């Protein structure tokens, strides 16, 4: 007996988009390592934000839920790292992992009751989480040193390799960023990621197909929290100083701009968004008082002509060309 031969052949085409973006990324990195300290700082912030937004994207982009409080997890990571590495001389890599685990745990405890909420209500609940964390970081001064902030945080170190200079630190951050993006890519293209994206599409249909919606939302929230925590830890090491303002509401605004500008729900979007939102003000610095005006104009133009963000725009462009 012969079975009808049905073979699934995926259209083979070179991932030009991914190749192009990688080249741009490589160019930025090469330029940065040959440039002065200031450029290194700016690109370092961009890379840290890229990690943060990659996590946010898992929850908001893939799973389609709103969180206005991811800064809380960056604060947990930042302060956790500051306290563990400064007061307890803990190995930075270990502190990074411990604070990530702790943030995941907090996300589990906070998310279990709040993720039942939807839309605006979930947004408000998570926003409150960010505000509460902010207040705690100010008021619990014996632990966090309050408004004064926490200084003297040692640089990153991976066992023997101590990243003393800023460029060495940036190298470590970039390695972690690549790991983080790779993980996000694998999560997206899996049974797990498809279930998350199904929830974003229709919770009713997902659960009618056996997807445990509450459980998947919670997992996605926890993973996003761990990314946020890692970003906070890296920031603490990179700058050596943190204060409550660092993890304030402005962080939420910046990360949202990056997410929507870069392309929500895509793997490359958070990277593109973080780079543009971080670098654009620096590139426009020469315009002096017109800097903010031009910055806003550029952002608006992009959002009007690329409503799905730059990644979405590029994706459409490349799809069209390849027919």
């Amino acid at each position, binding site marked *: 007996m012969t079975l009808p031969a*049905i*073979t*699934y052949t*995926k*259209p083979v085409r070179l991932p030009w988009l991914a190749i192009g973006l990688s080249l741009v990324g490589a160019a930025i990195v090469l330029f940065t390592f040959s440039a002065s300290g200031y450029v290194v700082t700016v690109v370092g912030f961009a890379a840290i934000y890229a990690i943060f937004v990659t996590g946010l994207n898992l929850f908001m982009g893939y799973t389609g839920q709103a969180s206005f409080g991811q800064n809380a997890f960056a604060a947990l990571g930042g302060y956790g790292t500051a306290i563990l590495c400064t007061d307890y001389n803990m190995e930075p890599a270990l502190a990074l992992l411990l604070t990530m685990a702790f943030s995941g745990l907090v996300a589990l405890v906070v998310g279990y009751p709040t993720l039942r909420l939807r839309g605006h209500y979930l947004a408000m609940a998570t926003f409150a989480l960010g505000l509460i964390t902010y207040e705690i970081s100010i008021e619990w001064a014996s632990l966090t040193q309050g408004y004064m902030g926490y200084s003297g945080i040692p640089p990153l170190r991976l066992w023997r390799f101590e990243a003393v200079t800023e460029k060495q630190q940036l190298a470590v951050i970039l390695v972690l960023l690549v790991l983080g993006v790779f*993980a996000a890519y*694998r*999560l997206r293209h*899996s*049974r*797990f*990621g*498809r*279930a998350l*994206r*199904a929830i*974003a*599409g*229709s919770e*009713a*249909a*997902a*659960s*009618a*197909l*056996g*997807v*445990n*919606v509450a459980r998947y939302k919670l*997992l996605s929230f926890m*993973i996003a929290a761990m990314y946020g925590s890692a970003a906070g830890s890296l920031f603490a090491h990179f700058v050596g100083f943190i204060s409550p303002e660092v993890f304030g509401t402005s962080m939420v605004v910046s990360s949202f701009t990056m997410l929507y500008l870069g392309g929500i*729900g895509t793997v490359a979007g958070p990277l593109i968004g973080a780079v543009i939102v971080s670098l654009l003000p620096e590139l426009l610095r020469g315009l002096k008082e017109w800097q903010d005006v031009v910055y806003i104009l550029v952002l608006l133009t992009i959002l009007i002509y690329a409503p799905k963000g730059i990644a979405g725009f590029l994706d459409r462009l490349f799809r069209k060309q390849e027919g």
Partner: protein
Amino acid sequence: MPLLSVRNVTKRYGGLVANDSVSFDVDEGMLFAIIGPNGAGKTTLFNTISGAVRPTSGDILFDGNSIAGLPQADIAGRGLIRTYQLVQLFKELTVTENVMVGAHRMTKGSVGAALFRPGWVRRQEQELLRETATILDFVGLSARAEVLADQLPYGEQRLLEVARALAASPRLLLLDEPAAGLNTGETEALAHMIQKVNGRGITVILIEHDMGLVMQIAQRIAVIDFGRKIAEGTADEIRAHPDVIAAYLGTETADA
């Protein structure tokens, strides 16, 4: 033993009785239809059976076990799969990915499997892609495999919803007005497909407005009006049933 046994199921919303002590049995392998005028409580009945809402009273047995009040995902996990009257596709996913989500309950692996992709996960994905291709071929959507779901024309969205449900290897498939919004030709094709699905041994319950479709393919029909079951039988019995005629056409006294 029937595959599905609905026993005196009542669903009240405040003062409104959407389902009033409805009972019926569906045997394994049957193509069963539920018909009734608009607002008769058909979709509420599906919502109750599939676990989207809890019955106010009564019991529902699936394969001999009570499923009344269980979470929807658990009920789906047992092989009771439904579709929706208003198409509920995962719009940002491709046609292939939509069907792959359908196979969620048949596959394994969570975060760890996604990150580390061990051999069994890669094999599972390959196997899943093959099955997906087979299902898309079955419903005639092979050419659309890589298209985003929301770019499909409406008729094909309906087909995709059925394809996705089939990927879940249902033991019992609940189709909520699958022909809604389809033209005559599309309805004809859909009727043929539902019969093919049923021919594979999948028990089907169909809610339908299109009497022609139901009379043509259903082996047994239950009629619901004002939340109550008013008749049950074969197509011929239903056609001749005075209460059904009254419900659909109105009685002299009701019109007067």
